[in-house]
């Protein structure tokens, strides 16, 4: 090993390529296949003539009252509303941890995060048990004679309410985290300065803390928006026929219907949506691998 230092370091940099190749084969190639399927260049039915064909895309994008396009907008609306609600609910949690619970903040943060480390599927099933027609809430109401036996609150499950509630529940810990990190890195002297200059607590919160935490708020919002755009497990377990999301439609195209070409149009739409969100919001996400850790602290 008598090569010059710069050579050896260049050689180390090449180690990045086997993992990149792994991602290319297992993620990028499948995405390319989805793209090919969506324009009719490949088909899952043997013997079908394949040719470049945009009719599925035309139907999805411009077809009059296309049900899949309607579902896309409906899903996007639900996920945006849930993301806004989660962001608003998580902000006081992060604020509490960073500004009120100074001493034990990491232990208390862990308490908030702990449920997030347990199985997502199990937590959704637990909600199903709680909200079911003869579930925990309804059987409690019967038991306590607050409602006649057998008369259940119907909107508790298989509704937009139950889907939104479970999504809201699932993402709170994850959204509180980036906000907390931003607040921890905030320069506290600015707050002291504001109060020294006569600002009330509320004013200094409104004029200093809140504006400085905007990057965390946006990061938190995107943290929940991106994964929920493709969500389909929650509606499968606690949603009804009217509260299925776009992800469910993709799933049913590939499990119940032979038309993988049309399904690929929907799968591709979801990928494009996420890529657009990343282009718009990516700079607020802190996974910047180029910046050495030493500069962070």
């Amino acid at each position: 090993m008598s090569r010059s230092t710069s050579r050896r370091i260049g050689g180390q940099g090449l180690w990045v390529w086997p993992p990149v190749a792994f991602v290319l084969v297992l993620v990028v190639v499948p995405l390319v296949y989805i793209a090919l399927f969506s324009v009719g260049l490949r088909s899952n039915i043997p013997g079908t003539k394949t040719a470049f064909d945009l009719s599925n895309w035309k139907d999805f994008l411009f077809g009059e009252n296309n049900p899949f396009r309607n579902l896309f907008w409906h899903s996007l609306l639900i996920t945006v509303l849930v993301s806004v609600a989660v962001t608003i609910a998580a902000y006081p949690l992060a604020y509490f941890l960073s500004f009120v619970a100074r001493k034990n903040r990491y232990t208390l943060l862990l308490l908030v995060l702990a449920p997030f480390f347990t199985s997502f599927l199990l937590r959704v099933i637990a909600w199903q048990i709680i909200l079911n027609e003869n579930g925990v809430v309804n059987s409690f109401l019967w038991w306590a004679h607050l409602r006649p036996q057998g008369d259940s609150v119907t909107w508790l499950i298989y509704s937009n309410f139950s889907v939104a509630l479970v999504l809201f529940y699932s993402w709170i810990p994850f959204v509180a985290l980036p906000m907390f990190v931003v607040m921890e890195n905030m320069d506290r002297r600015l707050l002291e300065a504001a109060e020294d200059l006569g600002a009330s607590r509320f004013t200094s919160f409104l004029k200093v803390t809140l504006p400085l935490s905007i990057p965390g708020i946006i990061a938190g919002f995107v943290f929940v928006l991106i994964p929920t755009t493709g969500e389909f497990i929650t509606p499968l377990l606690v949603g009804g026929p009217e509260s299925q999301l776009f992800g469910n439609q993709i799933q049913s195209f590939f499990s119940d219907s032979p038309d993988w070409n049309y399904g690929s149009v929907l799968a591709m739409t979801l990928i494009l949506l996420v890529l657009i969100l990343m282009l718009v919001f990516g700079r607020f996400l802190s996974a910047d691998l180029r910046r050495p850790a030493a500069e962070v602290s």
Partner: protein
Amino acid sequence: MTGRLGSSLLWIYFVLMVAFLFLPLAVLVLFAFNSGTTPTLPIQGFTTKWFTDAFSNTDLTSALLRSAAIGVLASVVATALGIMAAIGLNAKRVPGEPVAIGALLLPLVVPYISLAVGMLILLQALHFKNALWEIALGHAVIALPFALLVILPRLRSLDGSLNEAARDLGASDFAAFRLVTFPLLLPALLSSFIICFSTSFDEFAIASFLYPSGQPTYPVFLYGGARSPAILPQLIAIGTLVIAISLLIVGLSELGRRWAERRIEGRTSASVDVSSADTLATT
């Protein structure tokens, strides 16, 4: 910076939120030991019957074993690739760095449902039958960014001169890695393994499309079983165990973090706070 009234209100909000977050977990624990055959109130009585039933249900136990095997394979592959990627990105000059970073983080944002159907049509085009190893590779690729985000900061925090010293003393690149860098990376590799394993163990989308018929993974079995009242209590019992183990690991890693913090205390207490927040951020 917050008045007494504000602090009290925030404390109340925090306690209520934590209660809300733990409610579903508490419900599972409650019904795991309830002798009634359906998870409804009032509670009938105490039993451990569901645990013994669950462990003699071979469909359930073999699904658990399948997921454990897939999880181990996926975590080993993801962690090994994570080490490679971290070493590569740690170099002074990385050819094509932005492309490499973009590719390595891509699995974080691609919706699992799109990835799952993409893998399904690719495998079908290659005339591959559904198989468990395919699920393991799919899980490895979605876990790879987590492995990288855990390993890279640790690798960057290591003192490069240690490695240099080893080479000056005659160690080859590989020997320097094996004898110096690798042991120092071990805590990060352990975290990486745990995070990758739990990602895989809970993954439903890819597994639901790629499992061979009659060989469901644990989440696929769980999903099917959640609709059948006869085995639901057993699933609740096993679910309670799975949750207990996850919480135990979280608790142990917190103890480990505190222990490490106490050891470094005084040296750079401010930067420890930030780096532990980052560690949490990546888990």
